[in-house]
């Protein structure tokens, strides 16, 4: 197995309106590790994460797979084995939980084939994914009837149904209450470790990053300003990521909220 799951080769992103979202960045995402992108809103976490499955196209540089192929050259295959978990779940409310999870299998089928129902084996795969997030008994409930935490677990199950080698999670717990957020992150972390899935997770909460990350990449102003294990994330590093004001005791809730 190669050392890295993805190689970010001097990727930079400037949006059409002229905003520089990401300065030229070079990173290797370690295989099998739980990597956390940490930083305030607008630091470029989402842009960096979305460049890893081509939802954002770099204006410079490229993202390479473990085998060294640019992901844009075989985008569909890369996306099929890269699960993504979103901040707003991004489920279809009218569909059942199972129906949403099965959309995770789309990348493995042709357009015509996917007009027919999935095979029994694949439905079973989707049900197993739901079982792993503890929602097997909700499989036939409409997604919009589930709670926020349950919806996010369906989002995770959808990613798992892809049988991914890599999971990208964009602020997966930002819209959940702290207790639910901790449980959902614990679930995601546990599954990734157990299955040897590489994970890149963007977060803005320092505490969660310290607790779950194997490696923290700190971003500020579209630039990597910290890269190291959680133990190396000292006051100095936090000041670089969030600015010196983050360390003043008066306003801790702005960072930890």
């Amino acid at each position, binding site marked *: 197995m190669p050392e890295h799951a993805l190689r970010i080769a001097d990727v930079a992103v400037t949006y059409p309106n002229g905003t520089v979202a990401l300065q030229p960045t070079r990173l290797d995402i370690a295989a099998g590790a739980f990597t956390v992108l940490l930083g305030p809103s607008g630091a470029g976490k989402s842009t960096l994460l979305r460049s890893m499955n081509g939802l954002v196209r770099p204006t410079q540089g490229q993202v390479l797979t473990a085998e060294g192929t640019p992901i844009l050259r075989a985008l*569909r295959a890369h*996306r099929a084995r890269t699960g993504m978990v979103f901040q707003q779940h991004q489920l279809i409310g009218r569909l059942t939980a199972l129906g949403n999870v099965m*959309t995770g*299998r789309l990348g493995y089928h042709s357009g015509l084939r996917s007009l027919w129902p999935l095979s029994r084996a694949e439905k079973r795969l989707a049900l197993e994914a739901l079982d792993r997030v503890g929602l097997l008994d909700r499989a036939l409930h409409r997604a919009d009837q589930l709670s926020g935490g349950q919806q996010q677990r369906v989002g995770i199950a959808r990613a798992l149904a892809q049988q991914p080698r890599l999971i990208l999670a964009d602020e997966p717990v930002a819209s959940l209450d702290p207790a639910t957020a901790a449980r959902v992150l614990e679930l995601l972390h546990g599954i990734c470790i157990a299955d040897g899935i590489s994970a890149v997770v963007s977060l803005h909460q320092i505490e969660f990053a310290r607790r779950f990350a194997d490696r923290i990449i700190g971003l500020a102003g579209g630039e990597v300003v910290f890269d190291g294990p959680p133990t190396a994330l000292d006051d100095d590093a936090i000041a670089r990521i969030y600015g010196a004001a983050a360390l003043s005791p008066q306003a801790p809730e702005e960072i930890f909220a």
Partner: protein
Amino acid sequence: MEGILRAEAAARHRTALSALAVVVVCLAALGLTGFFDAQRFAEGIPALVQLTDEMIPPDFTRWRFWLRPLLDTLAMSIAGTALAVVLSLPLALLAAPNISPHPLLLAAARMLLSALRSVPEIIMGIIFVAAVGFGALPGVLALALHSVGMVGKFYAEAIEHADPMPIEAARAAGASPLQVVTHAVLPQVLPQLADVTIYRWEYHFRASAVLGIVGAGGIGFELIAALRLIDYAQVSAILLAILACVVVVDALGSALRKRLK
């Protein structure tokens, strides 16, 4: 404080002024179309009274001959709707900015839709009667083609307002553009599409009764025949039969739409 009151009064004056403008435009339109010509009304009212008198009681003696035309009209409305749906869906996908593969295709699809919309179905009916002869077929073609313009526009609007987030999620999972449509867009908007379709079917039943007048089959054909014979008792009976069917179709339609909610 005075400033706020002045601004409030000014806003009120502007509203009153626009209301007055609307009233003036409406009165002008009524005047241009001869509505204020009291003499024509004075002469017209006795004629109306006489017509009404001749219409009562309705003459239902030929009802057996209306069953087949009514069935034809119903079939025309369903066939026209089915054809309109099949043609509308691909055009709507091209005319929805979030799905359309190219801005040029988007513009072309929108142009085609509004062109179809702007030709009334009665004109299409006349053209198709000339092309394929009398009967229900030209009626169906006229209904379908005109409706594509309308249905396609409504479909495109529903598709345009689909939530972009599940669409992004499907793309992220490796879905092809076609799969994005079939598995992320359509599942979201299906209730709206069905709603538009059923509403259109109700409309088609009423419209196909009118289309019979230009020779496009159905009950309208019987209606125009009775009118030509100046048999107003039969005209009123046919109108009542159409009304009864419209009520039934509308009730069926709204029951179907309720089930989709």
